[in-house]
């Protein structure tokens, strides 16, 4: 007895996809390789660009008429900020490099070393003093 399968749109969609890919995949790939395809795509792009150029020019003309800044004008303000930030970055770099090279930095380093050295010596003296004070004194027998 055969069982009637219910309609499943997902399975149908998947089936269509797999069949299309199997049947047309290769044909599409072959088409994509053709010079005529590149030529057609290039032509479509150029047409779109011409249209876009026209729209941009018209928009800019309108914005000028109504005293509104265009995208280019707003972008040039942003460029000023970017350039300024670039100069700050250059300065920061210069300061960092100068600090690294600075003789003062070296001297401070040497001073730090000397202080650490003295610190260690003081530590040692303190330790010795502590030992002396905690050490039990000589016994009476020893004194005699």
């Amino acid at each position: 007895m055969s069982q009637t399968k219910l309609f499943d749109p997902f399975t149908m969609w998947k089936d269509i996809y797999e069949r299309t890919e199997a049947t047309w995949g290769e044909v599409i790939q072959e088409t994509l390789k053709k010079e005529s395809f590149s030529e057609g795509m290039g032509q479509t792009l150029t047409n779109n660009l011409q249209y876009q150029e026209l729209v941009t020019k018209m928009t800019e003309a309108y914005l000028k008429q109504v005293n509104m800044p265009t995208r280019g004008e707003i972008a040039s303000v942003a460029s000023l900020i970017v350039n300024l930030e670039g100069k700050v970055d250059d300065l920061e770099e210069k300061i960092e490099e100068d600090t690294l090279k600075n003789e003062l930095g070296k001297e401070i380093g040497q001073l730090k070393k000397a202080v650490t050295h003295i610190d260690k010596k003081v530590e040692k003296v303190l330790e010795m003093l502590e030992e002396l004070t905690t050490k039990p004194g000589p016994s009476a027998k020893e004194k005699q």
Partner: protein
Amino acid sequence: MVYSSVQEWDKWMDGMPEELKSSYERFKRVSDVLTVEPEPKVGQTPKEVIWTKNKAKLYRYQTTLKKTNKVPILMIYALINKPYILDLTPGSSLIEYLTNEGHDVYLLDWGTPGFEDRHMKLDDYILDYMPRAVKKVLRASDAKEISLLGYCMGGTMTSIFAALHPELPIRNLIFMTSPFDFSDAGLYSNWLDKRYFNLDKLVDTVGLVPFEMIDFGNKLLSPISNTYGPYIGLMDRVDNEAFVENWKLMQKWLNDGIPFPGEAYRQWIGEFYQENKLLNDELMIRGRKVQLSVIQANVLNIAAKRDNIAAPKQVEPLNAAISSKNKTFHLMDTGHVSVVVGRKAVQETYPLIANWLTENSK
């Protein structure tokens, strides 16, 4: 009101045959994934910004972890899509893996260019941003040498940078699916043919090349499977939660692109895809000739067998062009993106990079 009718519909569906019910459940789940559920979180490895310039940010990752590898690694990303593919999600993140292995990882994120950046050239990125980022990394990590990792176009830019800066202490270079030879770039070579592709008109008209246009070109490489394939896959495996999570992550990244600064695009298409100048020592960056033979650092050059964006034949020729004594070409059985995310990436790419870096940083 809507909620109650959905509930009623669900109740009504309960009485339907099992097959129809399951089909309905699947439909509901798919529509939830596509319309209701929030976008997945990406780039979750802890990081801090250590330098910014214009839209670019330099990140340092997991600063609190002990760095056992003394040579820091700076990742350079492409000008296409966003760099969080390198830190997609915990467990599938190259950055997380490397930092957990004790590497000091940095990433240079170019950010999203605005219309004011339409005049930015590759020269600017390579000569103004990258050297500064390298210096910042060396200072932040207090290291004497550096490793660089470039992904896709970021690798091509890294090779140019390394060739122009022999004075910098670049110890290791890792290139991941980066094209160097453009003499045969597959279908791109056909479509970007000078005779038909009006590059100058495009750049002059749009200024910033929109992401949708670049995405269209990538999808056109295999139009049916790239357009419908992901949705068929989702429909087919919507019961598998892990698959759905990965699907959402990948779709988020794939559709979260950025525009390409016009002047850089003019160079990228004109001087690389149309004239193949890099490998022929003809590329000039701000008046300086780029010669890959100057590169002497240790090189790990990774290509992916199933990559139709940077095919292995476009990647491999770098090794013959450089002077490095220690150079390895490694072919992965992955695609352009699965080289860096997914099971194969976690099992093979991440350990390969981590071990190679450790080995070459001693």
